[in-house]
């Protein structure tokens, strides 16, 4: 049951346009929902065959609960899956379309149901922290390529790293050495004729946090990941305010010499991306803000300070797990990798100082709502509804031309938790930008 209205908790299907066994194409009407404002068609999110229609016409269905299942061709039709809650419910709609139309829209998006549901976490041994779960093939490949498996997030059951994960990790085959761009370090990879994509990570993270998204981005776009001051490989800088921090980022941006770029920012990086958009609007092709900072004072200060302070895996793990909706995603190996990246005490000191400045008393001490109102480039705002760091309702400050994507059962780090969705949304903006460029050229 998609959420098509802001205050909607349940939806009522008035009629089905398909029956059990109907073959549908993405975009075909599936059913009609009635809200207190209007009736509206819900289109198929994918190609396939409809099975297991749970929701009868006339009944109220909670948001996010599956109402039917679409099987791709060849997929074995199993017994009806349990329709009950928390269901990583409805296949995502095609984002971008309504956002592009300029209407305020809030698109319900959740994990793709077309992939088999993950196995229960319960079974299986916990992988030791320094030895992540990986297939023999992945291990061999990692050995051959000199890749540290602890830095890779596995896509298999219980986070198992398979060959493809190692290959994907290496996909930016032309990863250049980190380079200084003014005050900060950036990492370039890939390339091609497409408009580059600039990624700004969040507080207490570094550019590795994008590892799962980068391989899923469309080919032909260079990817540039910036390390914030005192994060990753960027040196710590004296920062007295958010404005100081933003200036460093803008300086690095200018030094990097972007002509046009898609900017993606997460959390603190999201706030910085917004600040960047405010002063360098003409250089931005699009803006993707993932749970950005600065849209309200509320936050989970314990989590961010906890992250900044953590000096060992054991004290880091609970805060990392708080970042995501499904704590199983943060395997011991993942924690270990994250701690490895924070091993330098001076880095931790710098981050604590930054937190003291930006998030004093557990409050977001800077306000970017005005900047959001001014944003002129095509913008998407993504937020997990299970975000425990910044409340997702801060997204509701978005102006009409910003497309809102609220993700069910996703926490503060959608690019970790649902990288396919994040990549698809960025790709949509890139496609849109390309289409506009083509139209302009034709004119």
């Amino acid at each position, binding site marked *: 049951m998609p959420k098509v209205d802001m205050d909607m908790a349940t939806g009522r299907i008035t009629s089905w346009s398909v029956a059990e066994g109907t073959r549908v194409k993405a975009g075909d009407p599936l059913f009609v929902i009635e809200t207190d404002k209007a009736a509206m068609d819900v289109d198929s999110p994918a190609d396939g065959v409809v099975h297991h229609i749970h929701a009868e016409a006339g009944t109220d269905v909670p948001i996010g609960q599956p109402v039917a299942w679409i099987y791709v061709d060849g997929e074995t039709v199993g017994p009806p899956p349990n329709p009950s809650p928390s269901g990583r419910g409805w296949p995502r709609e095609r984002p971008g379309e309504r956002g592009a139309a300029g209407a305020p829209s809030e698109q319900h998006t959740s994990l793709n149901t077309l992939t088999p549901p993950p196995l229960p976490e319960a079974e299986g041994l916990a992988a030791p922290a320094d030895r992540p779960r990986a*297939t023999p093939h992945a291990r061999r490949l990692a050995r051959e390529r000199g890749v540290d498996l602890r830095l890779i997030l596995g896509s298999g059951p219980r986070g198992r790293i398979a060959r493809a994960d190692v290959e994907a990790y290496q996909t930016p085959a032309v990863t250049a050495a980190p380079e200084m761009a003014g005050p900060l370090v950036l990492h370039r990879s890939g390339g091609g004729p497409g408009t580059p994509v600039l990624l700004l990570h969040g507080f207490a993270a570094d550019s590795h946090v994008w590892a799962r998204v980068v391989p899923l981005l469309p080919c032909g776009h260079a990817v540039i990941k910036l390390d914030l001051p005192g994060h990753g490989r960027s040196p710590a800088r004296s920062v007295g305010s958010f404005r100081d921090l933003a200036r460093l980022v803008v300086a690095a941006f200018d030094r990097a010499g972007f002509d046009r770029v898609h900017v993606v920012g997460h959390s603190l990086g999201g706030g910085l991306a917004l600040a960047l958009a405010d002063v360098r609007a003409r250089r931005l092709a699009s803006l993707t803000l993932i749970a950005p900072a600065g849209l309200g004072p509320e936050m989970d200060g314990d989590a961010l300070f906890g992250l900044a302070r953590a000096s060992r895996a054991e004290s880091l793990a609970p805060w990392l797990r708080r970042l995501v909706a499904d704590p199983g995603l943060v395997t011991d190996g993942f924690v270990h990798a994250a701690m490895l990246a924070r091993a330098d005490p001076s880095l931790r000191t710098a981050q604590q100082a930054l937190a003291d400045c930006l998030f004093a008393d557990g409050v977001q001490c800077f306000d970017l709502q005005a900047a959001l109102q001014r944003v002129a480039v095509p913008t998407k705002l993504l937020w997990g509804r299970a975000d425990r760091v910044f409340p997702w309702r801060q997204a509701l400050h978005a102006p009409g031309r910003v497309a809102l994507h609220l993700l069910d059962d996703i926490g503060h780090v959608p690019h970790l938790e649902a990288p396919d969705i994040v990549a698809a949304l960025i790709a949509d903006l890139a496609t849109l930008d390309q289409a506009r460029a083509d139209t302009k050229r034709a004119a």
Partner: protein
Amino acid sequence: MSAAAAVAPATASTTPITGAVVRDLSYAEAIREAMAIALERDPRVVLMGEDIGVYGGAFQVTGDLVHRFGPDRVMDTPISELGGAGVAVGAALTGLRPIFEFQFSDFATLAMEQIVNQAAKLRFMLGGAVSVPVVMRFPAGSGTGAAAQHSQSLEAWFGHVPGLKVVQPATPHDAKGLLLAAVHDPDPVMIFEHKLLYKTKGPVPEGHYTVPIGEAAVCRPGRDVTVVASAVMVPRALDAATQLAADGIDAEVIDLRTIRPLDRETLIASVAKTTRLVCVYEGVKTLGVGAEVSALIAESEAFDYLDAPIVRVGGAEVPIPYSPELEKAAVPQTADIAAAVRRVVRGAV
């Protein structure tokens, strides 16, 4: 069963007579033809077994051979599995080349002493002073409604015994070639013939040829996953592979043909290529042939190429039931194989 006919003979490892006429024969006819050739070519060859004379064998495999070769060479034995098997062992030990037919492989339980303690071990125990060139044929497997005492797949028991060779042909071509290879082999060879295969047809060259014992056949090359099967599981695995191809999964199907000694090289090369392994066998899953195949791979240099857990699709932990639906449920069917392969390839295990 129709798929069995589609199993291409693995030309690389066979030695057919050049230019030999190839006809479509049933699996049972191919075995009979092999026995006739053996009887013609070697006066030491004798067939022994219960009701293999004028009756023609419980599954009509010996058929009319008694009329062609006489009752001294196509010998009915009394219903004495232990004694009969032992007589075959003693005859082989002293210069004959007996081919002993069990009516059902289940009855081998009555003869285990002679097979396991005597046939398999005599050469070794006597320091190489003797050999036991006996061939034993076992109609095996489920699917005929014969229930628990006439449907077992016990090949793994024999595969556990050093000194025995164990083969499990899946096609008429291999049934003939392996039987002739077995007759020439100086050591005891146990041939497990799946009863559901007897009537399946396939191309069989005329005349004498052998299929080497110990060589598996890649009967469908593929990229994504290695499916190792034997006997009637081979046509089922091939059917599953055809279904999977429609989903974009390219399965390599290997017909083990011999389960002792296993063809390590072929198995290792295939898994190193496909990175995934599904072992399919009708025998009870626990401690079965597929268990050995998966252990072999796990211990081998192919280990470092595995990109998914090895999966076994074996028989249920139950005696073979009578009722048709239960009987089907007790052993892997095409859909079970396809589902297991999908799970492995899609990273769901």
